[in-house]
């Protein structure tokens, strides 16, 4: 069920009821369980959650990079009017790196250590566009300067290990933008970097996507990153989206107790000298999750009603919705 956030423009991506399950010997892991959201053109959507919340798996599902024993079991992914799930393998390949691109978390390992940078960039272009290698090389060079890498001609001839972590991530960003995709999925791209570099990379990505009108899904566990960056935010827990809304609304007036807990546990939001607030308990294992609200064991507002899985309902500010029987803000309708 799509709860419509009133997108500023028509959506470039619409995800409806996405379910990605992993069929392991120990049981079924519902990594992504009924996820629905949409992203407008040029919009930045934040996908927030702890490890194990399913946010990365959502990203991989959108890209079609789920390997066995995982499988997208149901749902629809519509990119610019094209239903991705009905495409065959070759058609999907043509979308990847072309209309939809991804940036990964650890820049150390995403670039192949034994291949030169220019090889790795040019192949990304040649896989999708019919241009001469020379023209592709020029494009790669320009892309490198755009992400702020000095002396790009020399850098093209270098190997990944000759770059620092921040620079490698810039290269990854450049590669993602090479074919001017409609949407970029960034999976925690700054988590592995130094704090000072984080700010630079954030700024870089923000500027670039604004310039080109590329939509961006930013996956992170760090709320403070989302605060300055995203237009809208989805909070994920145990494979489900538990809250959606504009960034300001969700951060100022969170509807879901989990979001409240996340916000409260940010050290800056705590009083000096007092004990840091934590959400009690641990994230549940996604293996054979029992029915009902997955947060109920850790929630202070649990009642018997929570033994049934809640649905997403509009609540709070305009465009906000929540999956909870006892939200912190009033429910509409």
């Amino acid at each position, binding site marked *: 069920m799509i709860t419509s956030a009133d997108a500023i423009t028509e959506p470039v991506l619409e995800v409806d009821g996405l379910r990605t399950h992993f069929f392991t010997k120990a*049981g079924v892991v519902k990594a992504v369980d009924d996820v629905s959201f949409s992203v407008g053109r040029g919009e930045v959507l934040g996908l927030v959650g702890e490890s194990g919340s399913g946010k990365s798996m959502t990203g991989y599902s959108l890209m079609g990079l789920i390997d066995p024993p995982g499988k997208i079991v149901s749902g629809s992914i519509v990119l610019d009017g094209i239903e991705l799930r009905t495409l065959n393998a070759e058609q999907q390949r043509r979308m990847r790196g072309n209309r939809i691109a991804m940036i990964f978390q650890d820049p150390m390992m995403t670039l192949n250590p034994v291949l030169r940078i220019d090889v790795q960039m040019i192949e990304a272009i040649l896989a999708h566009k019919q241009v001469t290698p020379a023209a592709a090389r020029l494009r790669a060079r320009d892309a490198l300067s755009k992400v702020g890498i000095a002396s790009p001609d020399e850098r093209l001839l270098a190997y990944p290990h000759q770059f620092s972590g921040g620079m490698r991530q810039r290269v990854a960003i450049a590669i993602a933008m090479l074919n001017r995709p409609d949407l970029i999925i960034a999976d925690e791209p700054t988590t592995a970097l130094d704090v000072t570099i984080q700010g630079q990379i954030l700024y870089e990505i923000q500027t670039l996507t604004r310039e080109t009108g590329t939509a961006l899904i930013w996956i992170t566990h760090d709320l403070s990153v989302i605060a300055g960056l995203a237009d809208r935010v989805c909070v994920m827990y145990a494979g489900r989206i538990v809250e959606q809304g504009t960034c300001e609304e969700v951060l100022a007036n969170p509807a879901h107790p989990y979001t409240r807990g996340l916000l409260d546990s940010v050290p800056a939001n705590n009083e000096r000298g007092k004990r840091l607030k934590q959400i009690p*308990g*641990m994230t*549940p294992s996604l293996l054979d*999750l029992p029915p009902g609200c997955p947060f109920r*064991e850790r*929630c*202070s507002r*649990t009642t018997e009603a929570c033994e049934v899985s809640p649905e997403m309902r509009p609540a709070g500010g305009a465009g906000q919705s929540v999956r909870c029987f006892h939200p912190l803000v009033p429910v509409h309708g």
Partner: protein
Amino acid sequence: MASPLPVANAPARSVQTPAQRVAADFLANPVAVFGLGLLVLVVLAALFAPLISPQNPYDLAQLDVMDSRLPPGSPAPNGGHFWLGTDDQGRDMLSAIFYGLRISLAVGVISTVCALVIGLTMGLTAAYFGGKFETLVMRIVDIQLSFPAILIALILIAVLGQGTGKVITALVTVQWAYYARTVRSAALVEKRREYMEAARCLALSPSRIVFRHLLPNCLPPMIVVATVQVAAAIALEATLSFLGLGLPITEPSLGLLIANGYQYLLSGKYWISFFPGIALLLTIVSINLVADQLRDVLNPRLQK
């Protein structure tokens, strides 16, 4: 306040000793069980060779050269059959194989055990004392391991001469390096563990620390290496015997039997080489199967 949610996991197991767990894991793999069964058969055949052989192949009184080179299944003079044929001296192949198995296994196991003891001691002391001693020992090990075993064995035989003791010496010399290297790597890891620190604090004597504390924890990889090496030693001895540079004729191992039959291969009397070869094959394959499974079972990283 909510209590922490238990992480969904496998049901709690009843407490097993490590040995029981290893055995249970081992027996879970049908291939390994097959290998073990085969190995047990081989060992039993070797142990009870005199009892189960239709004929004592080395008792000259029982041999009749008129029976030589008979194909498998031919009838024997005293009733019964030469199930696997006879060789050029009239020996029953089946009996010869049983006796040969004995010798092959015996030489393999003896050389492995000796090499194990020497290699363990060298490797453990090198790891424990470190410094120049360790560098020296490991250099020797590295150089030795960079040459193929057969070459080292051949040169040793060339220098020392032939005979059972010299063959075993050659086998031991070839093998000790593997043990030394493996146990040293394991010991280096264990040395940093806290129980070693504790033992040192208790001012225990070095030999006690090395043999009572360090050694037992380094054993799992050693068991795997030793098992594989028994097979390798048997194969190496067979190769040496085949080349005529192994055990003397008075101790005919499977390798020698195969060598005997080599000349008859071209005239179609394959059984003189073929069946001892099969016996050798079964022995080595069964040991390797068992070793493969042992390696998986004893590997701490694969513990669930």
